[in-house]
């Protein structure tokens, strides 16, 4: 009996809506670097009215997923809009936001980017909040010291790397112990800089269960050359202990000028500046071809707003969402995180550290990294990691093809 009562109490706790007369609104937000900023926004909102009490849940996407499975997800999600979040969209488990003021302000090319990741027909399921453009982070002082120009072709990149290496400077800092840093940086930039990923994914999605050695497009066929080029850089031009270094080590190394280049997104800047706020850093897209016109920057929808259908507080969630999308707040957020604004009225990103990528974002020379697009059931971080640790790229890519076909067969 006592146990039954306890179970009932847990149930009540999950469904509990009010705290002291105010409606409790659970707001899932788990971008670690920006939690203090967002906590301030939540506190201000709670002070500004007395009907709703927003509670921020920073416990991460795994508990968000568990919330959906239990039928009690957060009321408003502001989450990394990748292949994982896209599942909720593809299953139409989040509501249509097309009538919100925020959705009407989104740039059309950014909307296309969001739809490319996940879509529920006839709905605007996710409203982008922050776009991250990622490329090579480089140390301007080291480049100046050896008279190096920002490379625009693969050959120039190789000659820059050779010069650095012969002067005893590690050209790239690799953090291969953390698989996600390999997939997000090395794997994505190498593929995105070489291929037209949009048409590649359109074809390979059509082939689905038939993808393999004999299909018209395959990872084994199309990704092999980029992977081989990637391996030239990863094998010959990284720090000797790259295999055992983690993301945190990479940020410390870049802060202290231990390497010239680093394949990370702008989120690393806030971590680097904790160690050395004066590090003189810039960015450029990783050149993978011999034509400077091919240069593109990797982008991802770092944050998108979604409201689960299962939420019992639709109106309250929308009200808080509108609050978040006020120009004052969304612009301040993107400025603080070096994100690019997704709205027509967004303030331009002016931080010099991401200036090297801005022209590409503004001209629409962008691609969504494959590791954000390929379903997470295929462990790209681990597979990409095994390539840089020495596995044969051809074998690993044919594994991805087989995984892709297997995944398509069980949909």
């Amino acid at each position, binding site marked *: 009996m006592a146990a039954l009562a306890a179970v009932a109490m847990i149930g009540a706790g999950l469904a509990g809506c009010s705290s002291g007369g105010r409606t409790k609104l659970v707001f899932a937000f788990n971008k670690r670097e920006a939690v203090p900023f967002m906590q301030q926004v939540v506190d201000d909102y709670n002070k500004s009215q007395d009907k709703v009490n927003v509670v921020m849940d920073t416990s991460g996407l795994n508990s968000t997923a568990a919330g959906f499975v239990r039928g009690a997800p957060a009321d408003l999600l502001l989450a990394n809009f990748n292949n994982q979040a896209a599942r909720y969209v593809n299953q139409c488990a989040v509501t249509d936001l097309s009538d919100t003021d925020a959705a009407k302000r989104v740039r059309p090319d950014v909307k296309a980017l969001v739809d490319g990741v996940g879509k529920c027909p006839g709905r605007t399921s996710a409203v982008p909040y922050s776009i991250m453009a990622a490329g090579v982070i480089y140390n301007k002082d080291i480049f100046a010291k050896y008279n190096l120009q920002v490379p625009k072709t693969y050959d120039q990149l190789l000659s820059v790397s050779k010069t650095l290496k012969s002067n005893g400077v590690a050209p790239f800092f690799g953090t291969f112990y953390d698989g996600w840093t390999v997939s997000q940086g090395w794997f994505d930039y190498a593929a995105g800089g070489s291929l037209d990923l949009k048409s590649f994914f359109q074809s390979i999605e059509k082939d689905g269960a038939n993808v393999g050695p004999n299909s018209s497009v395959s990872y084994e066929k199309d990704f092999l050359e980029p992977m081989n080029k990637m391996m030239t850089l990863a094998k010959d031009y990284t720090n000797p202990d790259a295999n*055992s270094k983690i993301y945190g080590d990479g940020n410390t190394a870049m802060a202290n000028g231990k390497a010239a280049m680093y394949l990370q997104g702008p989120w690393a800047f806030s971590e680097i500046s904790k160690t050395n706020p004066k590090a003189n850093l810039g960015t450029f897209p990783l050149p993978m071809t011999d034509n400077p016109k091919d240069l593109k920057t990797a982008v991802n929808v770092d944050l998108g707003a979604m409201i689960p259908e299962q939420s019992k507080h639709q109106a309250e969630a929308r009200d808080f969402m509108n609050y978040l999308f006020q120009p004052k707040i969304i612009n301040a957020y993107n400025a603080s995180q070096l994100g690019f604004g997704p709205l027509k009225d967004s303030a331009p990103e002016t931080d010099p550290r991401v200036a090297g990528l801005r022209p590409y974002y503004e001209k629409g020379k962008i691609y969504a990294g494959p590791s954000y697009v390929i379903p997470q059931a295929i462990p790209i971080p681990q597979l990409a990691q095994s390539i840089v640790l020495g596995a044969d790229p051809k074998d690993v890519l044919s594994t991805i093809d087989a995984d892709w076909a297997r995944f398509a067969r069980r949909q």
Partner: protein
Amino acid sequence: MAISSLPSVPDVPEKADRKHRKVEPVFWWMTVPTLVVFTLAIPIPAAIGIFYSFTNYIGVGKWHFLGLANYIAMFTDPQIRQSYIFTIGFSLVTVLAVNVISFLLAVGLTARIRAKVALRTVFVIPMVISGIVIAYVFQFLFSNSLPALGQALGVGWLKESMVTNPHLAWVAVVFVTAWQSIPGTLLIYIAGLMSVPEDVYEAADIDGASKFQQMTRITIPLVFSYVVINTILGFKGYLNAYDIIVGLTNGGPGTSTMSVAMNIVNGLTNGDYAYQMANATIFFIFTLIVSLLQLSLMRGRNK
């Protein structure tokens, strides 16, 4: 399951009036809540999971039946095959290493030595530290401290981190898991060794048995049931290996140390719920068979 069958319950004398005897109310008070909570927490979710393993459910939204597609895909999936090979191999090696080391330590710690109690306390400390904390500490040691030591001493093979070598990472996982689970096994062996009466050894001494003969002819046969407990409990625990691997290698490098349990948990967050439920169903059947085998082996010995 294994524990409850170990102590041989004294046979209750068969009585004709057993049916008519009134059941103590405390019996209901103790069993019903447990049974209700157990049913809610284990069999019902398991049944739901097995049901969904025949669908394409991702944990949310619409779904439809797939028949055996998940199971067929599973048996051709190299990653799943590798996770079974790794998990079973890792469990066997760890069970062996943990039992041999714990037994030898237990023999040492029950011998007539100084500071016995203090030493036992030291050896038991790893048991009270959380697995994930141990794993992160060892991860740091393996990827920073050991290579630095190798650098300083000029030992070539130490310079490269063991956890980033696809062929050696499993050794690191065995090492850390053993480090954490030796204390528990050790305590059971100490209890076992202390239960052997002194006079058996005195008699053996008088008969002129050597220390080695005393070990193989007296100690090991008398504590054999403790070996069985430790093997069964250990093997079952290692098959579910999760926290140490997550902290130490996160399944890497590549997928070389990905355990079955990790694959199943990842399925929930990766939108592969139904597929990994199929995996969980197969894994459940596998552990069931292993447990039944172990039980029947044990029963065979006791008879």
